[in-house]
């Protein structure tokens, strides 16, 4: 193994963490930016979940927004209609989305590739329909208002946006660390083996079905956790928090950041959200620009920003040391890998 005690990876992670930790201090009371950061951080947690199932295991789940919505609504409804405290509600959200993911995975993972994507898309849509139509429980389109802040037990006041930000950030760092730990361990090798070739994975003794199911459950758990936090950040939630559009937004975040990488989800989420906010000035016309940007990113930077940079620096290093350390990025994208190779030599 090539991990050394001091690696650029550690330095990089440290810098990202520092940037996120210090960002609010540079804002000088700009709560709007803090809000964008906080909301972005909750999304990023969910995107880490998507990274587990899509980036590492190679299964495109489009039910992700739906599970996020389940988390949102469990915390939203329990803390309002049932007057529960936040923390137990969040726990319920995590447990329900974990079990829900595991159980629905039994059926969902019988399908493969595009079928899995479409199956989960339908699942996500059904979740959305239930949330937006089951009036007696979810209040349908009226939404849920007055979601509680987390209890600080006299130590912390989570109604302060900055405190809430650090709470979400803590979970986000946790999600990133779990991704890092998983990737580095045998579990990560298992998942990547499944992504690369299910047959080969089977032949070296990997229980493909069970591992896919566990990865799916882990991904929905992240989504549920993120949803629960999102509900508290927003205070008011409506059915759009479970919509299929949200799934596609998250997919965009992770593709821009870099599939399967440790920093991709957080980098992608913040960059795309930043673009969204930036292009707000164009109002209805912003999608005239954003649409082509998305297409261009997918075509020209299919490994995402982090994946691309990794490959680039990896190449420089291997040229320096002679020993190839290789690169990250999704393995399937042969032709444009060659294209990036060409670009990198320039």
């Amino acid at each position, binding site marked *: 193994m090539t991990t050394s005690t001091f690696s650029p990876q550690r330095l990089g992670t440290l810098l990202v963490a520092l940037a996120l930790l210090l960002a609010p201090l540079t804002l000088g009371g700009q709560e709007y930016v803090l809000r964008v950061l906080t909301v972005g951080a909750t999304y990023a947690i969910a995107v880490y979940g998507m990274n587990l199932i899509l980036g590492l295991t190679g299964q495109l789940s489009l039910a992700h927004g739906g599970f996020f919505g389940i988390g949102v609504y469990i915390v939203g409804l329990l803390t309002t209609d049932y007057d529960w405290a936040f923390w137990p509600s969040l726990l319920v959200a995590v447990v329900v989305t974990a079990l829900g993911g595991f159980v629905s995975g039994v059926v969902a993972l019988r399908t493969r590739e595009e079928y899995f994507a479409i199956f989960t898309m339908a699942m996500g849509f059904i979740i959305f329909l239930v949330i937006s139509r089951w009036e007696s429980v979810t209040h349908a389109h009226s939404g849920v208002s007055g979601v509680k802040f987390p209890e600080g037990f006299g130590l912390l006041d989570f109604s302060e946006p900055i405190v809430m930000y650090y709470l979400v950030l803590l979970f986000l760092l946790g999600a990133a660390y779990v991704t890092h730990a998983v990737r580095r361990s045998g579990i990560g090798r298992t998942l990547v083996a499944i992504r690369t070739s299910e047959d*080969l994975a*089977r032949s070296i003794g990997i229980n493909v079905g069970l591992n896919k199911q566990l990865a799916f459950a882990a991904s929905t758990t992240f989504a549920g956790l993120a949803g629960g936090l999102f509900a508290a950040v927003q205070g008011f939630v409506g059915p759009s928090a479970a919509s299929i559009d949200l799934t596609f937004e998250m997919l965009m975040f992770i593709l821009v950041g870099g599939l399967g990488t440790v920093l991709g989800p957080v980098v992608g989420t913040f960059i795309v959200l930043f673009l969204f906010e930036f292009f707000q000035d164009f109002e209805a016309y912003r999608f005239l620009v954003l649409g082509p940007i998305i297409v261009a990113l997918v075509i020209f930077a299919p490994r995402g920003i982090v994946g691309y940079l990794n490959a680039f620096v990896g190449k420089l290093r291997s040229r320096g040391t002679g020993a190839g350390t290789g690169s990250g990025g999704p393995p399937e994208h042969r032709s444009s890998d060659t294209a990036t190779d060409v670009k990198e030599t320039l």
Partner: protein
Amino acid sequence: MTLLEVRGLGKHFSGLHAVDDVDLDISAGRITAIIGPNGAGKSTLFNLLAGFYRPTSGTVRFKDRDITGMSPHRTVAHGIARTFQTTNLFEDATVLDNVLSGRVVRSHSTVFDAVLRTPRHRREERLNLDKAMAALEFTGISEYRGEIASSVPQEVQKRVSIALALATEPELLLLDEPAAGLTEEETGGFAQLIRDIVADGVTVGLVEHRMSMVMSLADHILVLDHGKEIAAGTPETVRTDPQVIEAYLGADHQEQEGAG
């Protein structure tokens, strides 16, 4: 001692008898080869043994345990490893990472161990690395460990797939045409590698086209044609069996040698 015992094994694909009523004993510490013309059902037989296909009839016993129809991840855990006819690797990973993947089946640490970096996890990761390096050295490719699997020469790739299979610590290693597409010289190297594997205590099952290699390596040969056993025995008996000459060596001899 019989390591693997196959009785009356059959597999039908919509009316086609790919494997039909095959008996086979693989003895521990020996090399058992399965030969036959194209489409004789050799690879199907391997797939049945390793659990990739569920047999439609018959039994497979491994170390006196019934493993008929057991799924691959369990047969591997029990100690059967296999390689594929077309070299099958995690192409975008390094050679070392490929071989490390083979350690998954022998690992016990959970995701929590990984996240918490428990001593067990660290111990196991160290052990896995040692075993993987050992497998690389054993197959003679440790200098390629840092390279991307798809970028190393074909012979090395074939050795990687064997190292990967060895990393799962098998008792029985099923090699599906390990030398296909190699030069005469390289084939010699592979024959030696297979002998080393057996010397190291691993039993080998071999599907191979190249008669010279089979005849020099195998202790026991099973000849299949159209899914059925037509002969079995030592290389000497098989070589002289008229049915074998008829079905295989005779009709196809030239083509086989030419293609090889």
